[in-house]
């Protein structure tokens, strides 16, 4: 075997070891799997998944939603106010859970984010909330396939469906569709989410 071929195989072996480490996915609480298709770049390489960074990004979004629901409460009343308070409470729960996860992963917590302004009228506030909730649901979905750690994945899943519910709930108050993407929800990457947030004044 020539030197070049040997070096090629040595490189492939090392890459294989890294790939297996990446597929192992941290805590290993779930049963063994056989699949490799679509696995992310192994941890430690450029472009590799970073569960802590993803959770920190999501925590920033949760802070924004909590801020939004607090500030829009004067714009709604009755059962709509009850719903807004309930959703605010759930966003607060998400903040607590994500903060705990970041501490478990020994990742720094981001500073809480706020919106520059939230519409003060009922229709404007609900339209704003509908847009934000759909954006946040798409942000969670956009990262699910990149998560490696089992605990982080379960947390992301258990929140992303709730954010989808929130979007549908707010939409129902404005007779907007619960499923703006149709049969299959669309995920968005962080850069796209940040661009929309900038438009929304985050």
């Amino acid at each position, binding site marked *: 075997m020539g030197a070049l071929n*040997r070096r*090629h*195989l*040595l*490189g*492939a*072996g*090392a890459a*294989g*070891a890294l790939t297996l480490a990446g*597929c192992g996915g941290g805590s290993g609480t*779930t*049963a*063994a*799997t*056989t*699949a*490799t*298709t*679509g*696995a*992310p770049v192994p941890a430690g390489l450029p472009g590799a998944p970073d569960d802590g960074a993803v959770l920190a990004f999501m925590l920033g979004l949760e802070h924004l939603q909590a801020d939004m629901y607090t500030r829009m409460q004067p714009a709604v009343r009755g059962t709509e106010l009850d*719903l807004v308070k*309930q*959703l605010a*409470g*759930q966003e607060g*729960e*998400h903040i607590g*859970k994500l903060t705990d996860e970041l501490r478990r992963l020994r990742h720094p917590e981001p500073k809480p984010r706020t919106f520059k302004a939230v519409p003060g009228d009922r229709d404007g506030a609900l339209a704003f909330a509908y847009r934000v909730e759909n954006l946040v*649901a798409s942000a969670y*979905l956009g990262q*699910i*396939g*990149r998560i490696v750690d*089992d605990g982080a*994945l*379960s947390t992301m*899943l*258990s*929140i*992303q*469906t*709730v954010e*989808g*519910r*929130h*979007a*549908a*709930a707010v939409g*129902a108050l404005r007779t907007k569709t*619960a*499923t703006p*993407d*149709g*049969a*299959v*929800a*669309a*995920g968005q990457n962080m850069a796209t989410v940040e661009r929309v947030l900038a438009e929304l004044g985050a």
Partner: protein
Amino acid sequence: MNRRALLIGGAALALAPRATIARAAGPLDYLVELEALQVAVYDLATQLPLTGQPAALAGRYRNHENEHLQRVSQALHVQPPAVAPPKFTDESGFLAFAQRVEGLAVSAYNGAIPTIGDHGLRAELAAIVQTEARHSAAIRALRATSPSPRGFEPGAAAAPVQRALAALQG
């Protein structure tokens, strides 16, 4: 010795297929059965004399569930099974049944996805479960119950999901 191990590892990688079958540790056939049941629910609902939002919702969600059934059965390489037809005869019965099935679907997917090693398949099923959660919320809103009753939706293991699925078809 190390060099030898790496050479063997490299050779094994070269021989391995680029893409292995995207299956989880345990069979996920029940997800396909769940989608088939949802199709049956909305199929039956569209045959009822519904009006207004329930009628619009039944038609739209039937199309969604048909697409889910096709996607999930293909992704998991599982043929859609025959399911027992749901037993409701009016709008109230339809919405109550649909709420139960949609809620079960959210728990089922959220429990199944972490057992899957294929990250692409995880994302595909996550996109479907978010839609199921949105369906559930819209139906709950129509029934004047909280569209988002809990702050978190942990997944359910296969066995309780399969029991609930059997009960719904009992």
